[in-house]
């Protein structure tokens, strides 16, 4: 896409809570999404996304064509609604003042440094941003939007009807997201960052405390969520989210790097909370839909990063469930951009707000072929590349892919991926633990075709082929455990449509068409952001000792002259 003066742009911005991001939306329906972490190389970077906006201005947008900037929340309401009540700790107030100084209240000042022209600045409520964002990924018109997260604009969730009228709001003391963060902290991980690790550990425990938690801590009753505030701190932002009663009932916080999987109590408690949260969300949706089986439930908010929860919902509910590729806060910059479009009445003049999006709305990957000092081309066409990829998979080798349009979610879908044969135990172990340096308890996701899906998972209801779909699926066959399966025999399959229209890189489509089952993980070392630029690709190949890279129909080698 070239910079043209005929296009007008809206920039949606999300920052201040978790990972920051921005989305550019044009009046011609073009959309580009960027996560700030891709450019700053700081995983989960929460700062104002100035690198991303600067990237957009340098590559796609003329400064004078920015018509509106839309933020994903109301900064003042957000700042005021937690930690400002009387009789909290002095540290809480100090933190609030520090947060004020660095908060999104100064968004206008930050944007002025990048966009010199006159533009409108609008603010969309936090949960409405989530709902508007997720709406862009569904074709269905008969829908309900369910948003559940930790906290934002003084709420922890909301439910909207198909016209975005509010059906229900959830207060901060009903926050399932904060409960999950608190459990993450208790298990010795970083809250608001490592929740996915806790979810993986849940499979190693048994929900032994499910009854106790369901009766005393989290329950769904009379159409709403109840959380016992004796266990969790929802008010003081400077203190732990856990209160002494929690430690009394479940034991003290894990502080040393012992073998977590051998700690039965921790695994059982995590498993029990996972179970109860699943149960509450299930009940909530059942109450919402009652007899209306044809309504699609579009779920967003950080809680729906939990693929086990999404898998359970999809298994037990009769309604269709949809989770966008980026359900958390970064994804809501998409919603903010569409809010800006509605504000500008764009939906009346063109189709920019009625297009159904997919996961591939990031920028195009950079051209590595113009850096011969870094990369040496070793195949010259797709057929040769296909032959080489087959050889590599046969040798239990791993190759990287950097091709096409970047995917936007936290999960790699092929554009920036590390690939190996999912049926090879050696390759899967090597990729997960040696190359990616991930914890052994975290399974790798797979990509496969419909035929193989049926073969492995049977007639599981979870056969939605949305590329961005995140649910866990259970293995139905109990013979010879497959190397890509998690401890509880589940997996997160990515069903690949091998048609020409699919945006998956050609090499992966060809392999999957030939019945390969591929392990696919993001192209980065665990703890780093996904690769974005040529420099990141080269550095990651050297750091992970990956020899082969697929890019634009050809294979390349990193020229490293025995660096290490």
């Amino acid at each position: 896409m070239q910079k043209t003066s005929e296009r007008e742009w809206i920039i949606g911005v999300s920052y201040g809570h978790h990972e920051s991001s921005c989305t550019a939306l044009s009046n011609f329906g073009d959309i580009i999404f960027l996560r700030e972490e891709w450019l700053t190389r700081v995983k989960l970077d929460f700062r104002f996304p100035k690198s991303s906006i600067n990237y957009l201005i340098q590559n796609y947008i003329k400064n004078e064509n920015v018509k509106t900037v839309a933020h994903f929340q109301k900064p003042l309401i957000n700042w005021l609604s937690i930690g400002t009540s009387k009789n909290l700790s002095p540290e809480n107030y100090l933190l609030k003042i520090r947060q004020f100084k660095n908060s999104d209240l100064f968004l206008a000042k930050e944007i002025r440094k990048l966009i010199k022209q006159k533009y409108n600045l609008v603010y969309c409520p936090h949960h409405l941003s989530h709902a508007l964002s997720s709406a862009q990924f569904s074709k269905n018109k008969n829908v309900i939007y369910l948003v559940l997260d930790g906290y934002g604009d003084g709420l922890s969730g909301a439910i909207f009807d198909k016209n975005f009228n509010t059906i229900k709001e959830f207060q901060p003391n009903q926050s399932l997201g904060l409960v999950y963060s608190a459990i993450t902290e208790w298990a010795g991980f970083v809250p608001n960052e490592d929740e996915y690790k806790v979810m993986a550990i849940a499979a190693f425990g048994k929900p032994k405390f499910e009854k106790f938690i369901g009766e005393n801590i989290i329950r769904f009753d009379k159409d709403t969520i109840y959380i016992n505030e004796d266990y969790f701190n929802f008010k003081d932002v400077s203190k732990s989210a856990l209160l002494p009663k929690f430690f009394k009932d479940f034991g003290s916080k894990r502080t040393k790097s012992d073998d977590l999987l051998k700690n039965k109590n921790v695994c059982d408690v995590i498993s029990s909370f996972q179970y109860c949260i699943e149960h509450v969300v299930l009940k909530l949706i059942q109450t919402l839909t009652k007899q209306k089986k044809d309504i699609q439930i579009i779920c967003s908010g950080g809680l729906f990063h939990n693929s086990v929860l999404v898998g359970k919902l999809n298994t037990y509910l009769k309604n269709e469930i949809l989770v966008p590729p980026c359900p958390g806060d970064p994804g809501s910059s998409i919603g903010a951009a569409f809010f800006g479009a509605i504000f500008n009445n764009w939906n009346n003049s063109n189709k920019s707000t009625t297009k159904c999006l997919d996961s591939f709305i990031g920028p195009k990957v950079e051209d590595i072929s113009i850096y011969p000092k870094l990369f040496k081309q070793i195949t010259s066409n797709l057929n040769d590349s296909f032959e080489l990829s087959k050889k590599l998979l046969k040798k239990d080798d791993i190759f990287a892919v950097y091709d096409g349009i970047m995917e936007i979610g936290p999960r790699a879908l092929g554009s920036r991926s590390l690939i190996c044969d999912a049926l090879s135990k050696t390759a899967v172990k090597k990729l997960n633990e040696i190359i990616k340096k991930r914890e052994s308890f975290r399974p790798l996701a797979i990509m496969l075709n419909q035929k193989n899906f049926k073969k492995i998972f049977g007639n599981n209801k979870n056969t939605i082929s949305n590329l961005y779909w995140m649910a866990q699926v259970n293995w139905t066959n109990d013979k010879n455990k497959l190397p890509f399966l998690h401890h509880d025999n589940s997996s997160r399959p990515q069903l690949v449509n091998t048609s020409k229209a699919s945006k998956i890189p050609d090499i992966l489509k060809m392999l999957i068409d030939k019945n390969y089952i591929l392990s696919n993980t993001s192209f980065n070392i665990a703890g780093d952001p996904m690769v974005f630029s040529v420099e990141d690709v080269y550095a990651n190949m050297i750091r992970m000792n990956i020899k082969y890279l697929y890019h634009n129909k050809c294979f390349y080698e990193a020229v490293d002259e025995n660096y290490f």
Partner: protein
Amino acid sequence: MSNKIDWKRLSAVEMTSGIEVFYLSKLFRNNDLLHKKIIKHGLDEYRHSSIFYKYNKKFNKNLSTISSPHILINDAGLDKSPIDRLEKNIFKFCSYVYVGEYRALEFNNQATSIIKDKKILKDINIIENDELGHASGVMKYLEKFPKYKYIFYILIFKIRYFFQRFKNFKIIRKLQNNSGIFMAKIVFKLIPASLFNLKKNPIDLNTSIKNAKDI
């Protein structure tokens, strides 16, 4: 003695150096050779970070990771860096990297005086040689240009680092923190609670569009 060193912070500081060197590498895309050299410099910093992280795991056995954004941005100083992530001035950037390398060398000297473990000393020695190589490489590049283009920046960064030492004294930090708490308490005590209870508007789409400019 080795467990008295804050390996975690060291590891994070090396990682932030690596990150900043990668920002610098993007400014050299039109010079194949330097581009690659700077990427390799960045890779060295990442390698140093993983060496320190290994010792953090060995001696402290805590659960923290260094790639956490709060550690990199707040603790390891990415947020207070005098170099903005969009910095385009090559001379300013290179001067910053040059002074940073010398600062790292200064630390290494301090560390070697308290560390007795031969293996760690060997690792620190390797890191020291890397830092020396980086510093001389950056200076070699800068010396291709008239001195007035960069000497001012070097001086500024040296002065800045000199004063940063005092900032790191515990007593100063404690004083800053206590006065901050005192002020925060006064502010929140003087302002009536009712001021914080904003009337929230409904969050449905139609009302939100009408109130789109409200913060």
